[in-house]
Structure formats: structure tokens, C-alpha cells
């Protein structure tokens, strides 16, 4: 049964607040840090165009066709997943939550329990979805990456990439990092940057490597600039680095430090923290990283009710679809150390 509790039978005063577990906010969704594509039930077709325009000498006679009008389609179907738990509300009948149970032996549903414990579980479902979006791997991809021969060059899988893929627990789809390493049956065409253990001391050096690897054509677009996605721990390194008094200037421009509206930029590019692995960063235009689903409302939608007709057992169920797709891979930088 899903309830795992240390219960004190209620007596005396109850402190009104239930301290919830601290969770990272699901910024990928809340701040729309990637392209959120909803409305895809199945078979979403993504197309990438690559054209070649060839200038040639003018002729007044019949010209010769030259150049390429090319495009590539991929078809993707979001994977359907669920979270499901059953619990027996009778097991909390003697706890603080009985003060919000209606009078009568039949009534063992606590509104406070639903608002606190179950609500906290819902937040964890959303966070788990976000973490999987960045970090998941399918068993087929895991096997394929393990079978590659690692090397330092762009055309080889990195030893760090192979280590990362080996450690993951295989799931139903490839997360963003795995997708960048191995994509559509072959090594991904991401721009590979060999990383190291990132600390407060070397974060500027390592961020320089990431910035330098971004293709100039990507940086010189007026439409949108790349975002540098980093793990949560890097925000501490950034502030510690900025706080070294002997540094000539703040390398990372932080506005609204410590507030909800805090923003961080490096060489004019936004830095955003997401559930990436340690010593990993991605620099990509947000529209190239796609979160596919049927409906984003599903992630926050919970269904609860009696699990069986003849029992008091209750269920909590979330069902949603999810898939990660990284487009224009050769424009995106993957730093992994």
C-alpha cells in the first residue's frame, strides 16, 4: 500500500502546516524553456530542410540545373506513460488528518491529506516528467551507445557520453541528452565538447569552451539566441565565481539575484538551470529542443477515486504522453565531462 507513514494518534494541538518535500520547480514547462509541442496524439512529422544554392555563369541558352532543394522527414510518436498508486485512507484514521474527515464511520477521506500529501505527490510527478525529458534513455539506445567505440573526434562517441548512457536506468524513450548522443539509428551530429569536473574555479573556462563551440551562424541570428542549459549546481558555481573579489568584473551577468525574477547571462546568452546531469551543458536555440505530448494539461491532471467497488482503497493516477526530439542537431552543443 502506498501510504508509508509514521503516525502519531491525534491529541492536543496540531501545528497547522504540513512541511512538504522541497522540489525543484519544473522550469522547463513553467518558463517554456524548450519548444512545447502539444496536440500530438501519434505520428508527428518533423521536417528539416537543407538546400544548396549554386551560383553559375549566365547562359542565354538552355541552363543546367545546379544545387539542391532537400529536406528530411522524421515521424515521432509520444510514448504513453502513467503513475499509479493505491492507498488505504483507513490507515490515517487516527492521525491529524482525521480532523478533516466527515462524521460517520464510512467517511475516511481527508481533504487536508489530499491537499498536502497528495498535492506534493502531484508536484513530484511533474518534476519526474521533466527530469526524464532531459535524462531518460531507451534500452535500444543504451545498447547501441554501449556498442560504439569511443574516441576524441567529433565522429566518435565520447567516453563521458558512453559513461553517462551506461549509468542511466533504461526507460520508455530517449531524453534530450541521449537523443543528442544517438539519434535515428546513428551517432548524433551534435557538436561534442569534452568536459571536465566543473567547479566554482573553472566554470568560466568551461563556459568559454561551450560558447566557442556554438556555430557563428547560430549566434548571429536575429530571430532567437541559443540558451545555455546547465545543471542546478552550476548556479552556485556562477555566483561563487562572480564573488571572487580579485576578478576584474562579473563574468556572469546576474540580475535580480536571489529573487524570483533572477536572470543570468554569459556573453549575452541566457543561462537556465534544468535537471541535466552534473558536468553537462547544452547550448541550443530553444525551438530546436522539442517536448512532444498530447496535452500539457495531462501532466498536471490527477484522477483519484475508489480503486475497487467493494473496498475503501483509493487510487491516484496520472496518464500522459511524452517524447523528446532535438532538431538541427549539428547546430547544438553538448558539453559532457
Amino acid at each position, binding site marked *: 500500500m502506498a501510504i508509508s507513514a509514521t503516525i502519531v494518534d491525534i491529541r492536543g494541538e496540531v501545528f497547522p502546516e504540513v512541511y512538504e518535500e522541497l522540489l525543484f520547480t519544473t522550469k522547463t514547462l513553467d518558463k517554456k524553456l524548450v519548444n512545447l509541442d502539444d496536440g500530438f496524439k501519434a505520428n508527428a512529422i518533423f521536417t528539416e530542410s537543407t538546400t544548396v544554392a549554386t551560383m553559375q555563369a549566365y547562359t542565354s541558352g538552355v541552363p543546367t540545373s545546379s544545387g539542391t532543394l532537400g529536406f528530411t522527414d522524421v515521424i515521432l510518436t509520444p510514448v504513453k506513460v502513467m503513475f499509479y498508486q493505491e492507498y488505504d485512507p483507513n490507515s490515517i484514521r487516527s492521525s491529524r488528518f482525521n480532523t478533516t474527515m466527515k462524521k460517520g464511520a464510512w467517511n475516511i477521506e481527508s481533504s487536508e491529506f489530499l491537499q498536502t500529501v497528495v498535492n506534493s505527490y502531484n508536484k513530484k510527478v511533474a518534476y519526474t516528467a521533466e527530469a526524464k525529458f532531459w535524462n531518460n534513455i531507451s534500452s535500444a539506445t543504451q545498447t547501441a551507445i*554501449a556498442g560504439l567505440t*569511443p574516441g576524441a573526434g567529433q565522429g566518435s562517441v565520447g567516453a563521458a557520453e558512453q*559513461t553517462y548512457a551506461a*549509468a542511466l*536506468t533504461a526507460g520508455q524513450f530517449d531524453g534530450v541528452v541521449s537523443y543528442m548522443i544517438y539519434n535515428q539509428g546513428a551517432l548524433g551530429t551534435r557538436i561534442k565538447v569534452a568536459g*571536465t569536473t566543473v567547479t566554482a*574555479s573553472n566554470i568560466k573556462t568551461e563556459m568559454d569552451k561551450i560558447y566557442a563551440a556554438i556555430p557563428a551562424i547560430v549566434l548571429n541570428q536575429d530571430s532567437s539566441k541559443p540558451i545555455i542549459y546547465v*545543471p542546478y549546481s552550476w548556479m552556485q558555481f556562477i555566483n561563487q565565481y562572480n564573488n571572487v573579489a580579485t576578478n576584474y568584473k562579473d563574468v556572469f551577468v546576474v540580475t535580480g539575484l536571489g529573487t524570483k525574477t533572477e536572470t543570468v547571462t554569459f556573453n549575452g546568452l541566457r543561462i537556465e538551470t534544468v*535537471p541535466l546531469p552534473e558536468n553537462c551543458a547544452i547550448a541550443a536555440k530553444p525551438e530546436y529542443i522539442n517536448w512532444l505530448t498530447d496535452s500539457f494539461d495531462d501532466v498536471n491532471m490527477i484522477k483519484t477515486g475508489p480503486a475497487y467497488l467493494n473496498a475503501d482503497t483509493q487510487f491516484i493516477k496520472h496518464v500522459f504522453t511524452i517524447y523528446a526530439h532535438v532538431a538541427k542537431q549539428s547546430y547544438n552543443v553538448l558539453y559532457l565531462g
Partner: protein
Amino acid sequence: MANCSYKFTDKVPSHLMPVYSKDKEKPNFQTGTEFQKGLFVHGPQAGLLTEDKLTDPIVEYLLEKTDGEGNPIYAHCFEKKGKKDKD
């Protein structure tokens, strides 16, 4: 691990990890927890590198990995397999 020349030393810590069903119909159905020996190379969010996942390139990469100040992080975690281990 069969193809790896290295094994974990006794200094590798154990962590309480979820155990998942082997049923192909429910590949991510958690059946319980157990202590597993391994390394969180890229943090807990990226999974535990257990001994069965080791290959020579992975171990050689980890042996060279430093803490950012030149100190090896995992040198104490691996040792070459003896003849007995390989049999």
C-alpha cells in the same frame, strides 16, 4: 562486465536503489529497493554506474577524471581483475 579488465574495489560505496521488474510488459515497474554498489558519475539524476556496466574505455576515462584541480576522483575505485576474476 564480462569484457572489462577492471572491477570495483571495496571502496566503492553502496546506495539504496529502486529495483525494477524484469517483465518486458512492465519494464519500469518498481518492485522494491536494494543496496547496489556503484558510482554516481554524473549525479543521482543520471543513474548509478554499476559494475556490470563497466567497460575498459569507461574505466580508463574515469581513472583519468579529476576533480577540476588535478586530483583523481575515482583512482581508488578500480583494480585490474586477476586471473580468478576472469575465469
